[in-house]
């Protein structure tokens, strides 16, 4: 993860020490940190390690030239999304086309027109920043600001792999707001949205930095509590449940909102399968609903088998 308080880093790869020095001085008042490499291999290593926001890449270099370096950058998943501006002494159209075809976003000829180079660098950095924001926004639920389902699904796969490799516990919590449809029908969708947002804020302030809280869809939420066994998870989730019940809602002060919660730290079936984890947490949530809602239930394989015999209906219909 990039630290947001940091200046962006721009990496300059050029075999000429004079060019490195020239640009170091000419770009020193810009709003980024410049790092330099005099050989393409060094540049590639720095790109992998520091993930700069932008690379300025010379084409004509001995040993490994800029085209080959560009190919390496675009083949490596760690560097593929870093924008590259080619800086070249060649004004040749074929070179420019080859550079763009290999994935460069811009092509600047030497000798540099400095105001132009500075403007192009600023523009590339701005685009990079916008792309990063877009990428992040694609992982965030628009209404609540929590992580969205796509992001959660990825994190769950990672967490299960981590759990299996290192034996670290984690708990998966499914939460569902009780009688949400009736609340929407009675008080209108804006009231329903306010409840979703209020619950999201409560969740956010309750989980720890290492946890992942997500809106899974509709009035259903899912929380991943890292390094936490089910009994510890129960304490945290119980605080959330009580916190929700205590909230007052300006649009319907007379009506409290409650939620039901299912916790799983060891699923039935294949512990390597995200679907098994979600199903087991869902089973626990169903138990909570059936036992009268507004409660927290830890998944118990024995209890679920009985329930499954009599009541196979999916929990999402329980409200």
């Amino acid at each position: 993860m990039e630290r947001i308080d940091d200046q962006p880093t721009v990496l300059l790869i050029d075999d000429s020490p004079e060019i490195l020095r020239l640009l170091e001085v000419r770009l020193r008042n810009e709003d980024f940190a410049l790092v330099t490499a005099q050989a393409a291999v060094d540049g590639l290593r720095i790109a992998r390690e520091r993930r700069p926001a932008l690379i300025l890449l010379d084409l004509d270099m001995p040993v490994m030239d800029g085209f080959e370096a560009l190919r390496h950058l675009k083949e490596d998943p760690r560097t593929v999304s870093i924008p590259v501006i080619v800086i070249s002494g060649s004004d040749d159209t074929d070179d420019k086309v080859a550079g763009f075809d290999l994935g460069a976003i811009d092509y600047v000829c030497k000798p540099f027109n400095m105001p132009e180079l500075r403007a192009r660098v600023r523009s590339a950095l701005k685009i990079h920043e916008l792309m990063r924001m877009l990428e992040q926004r694609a992982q965030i639920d628009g209404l609540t600001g929590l992580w969205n389902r796509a992001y959660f699904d990825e994190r769950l796969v990672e967490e299960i792999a981590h759990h299996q490799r290192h034996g670290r516990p984690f708990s998966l919590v499914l939460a569902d707001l009780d009688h949400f449809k009736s609340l929407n029908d009675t008080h209108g969708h804006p009231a329903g949205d306010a409840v979703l947002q209020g619950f999201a804020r409560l969740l956010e302030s309750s989980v720890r930095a290492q946890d992942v809280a997500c809106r899974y869809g509709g009035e259903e939420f899912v929380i991943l509590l890292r390094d936490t066994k089910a009994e510890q998870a129960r304490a945290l989730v119980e605080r959330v449940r009580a916190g929700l019940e205590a909230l007052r809602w300006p649009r319907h002060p007379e009506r409290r909102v409650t939620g039901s919660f299912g916790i799983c730290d060891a699923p039935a079936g294949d512990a390597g399968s995200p679907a098994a984890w979600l199903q087991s947490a869902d089973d626990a949530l169903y138990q909570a609903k059936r036992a009268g809602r507004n409660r927290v239930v830890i998944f118990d394989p024995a209890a679920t088998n009985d329930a499954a015999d009599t009541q196979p209906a999916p929990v999402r219909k329980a409200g």
Partner: protein
Amino acid sequence: MPQPDAPSDPIRSEFADDPDMAELIEMFLDEMPARVDALGECLREERLTELQTIAHQLKGAGAGYGFEPVSISAASLEGSLKAHSDLERIRADVDDLISICRRLSR
């Protein structure tokens, strides 16, 4: 020793009036005598790979510091070396580049 056929007008940097560049041009010029020596030495000892590296760097840097004739001449030398031209041709290119480098002035 003055060469009778060498033009002797000093070549000034295009960026001579840019205060930002003054210090850089200064450094570039300070290193020039060593560069010129290295060019002559590489040619005498026929270390052509090293010669090509110096030519390549001067080609890239010259115009960047406002000395376009350096880039043009160095590009010609680099081209001759890349094409494995005969030593006479290379010698002529080196002489041309050296004479230009000696005319550089702040």
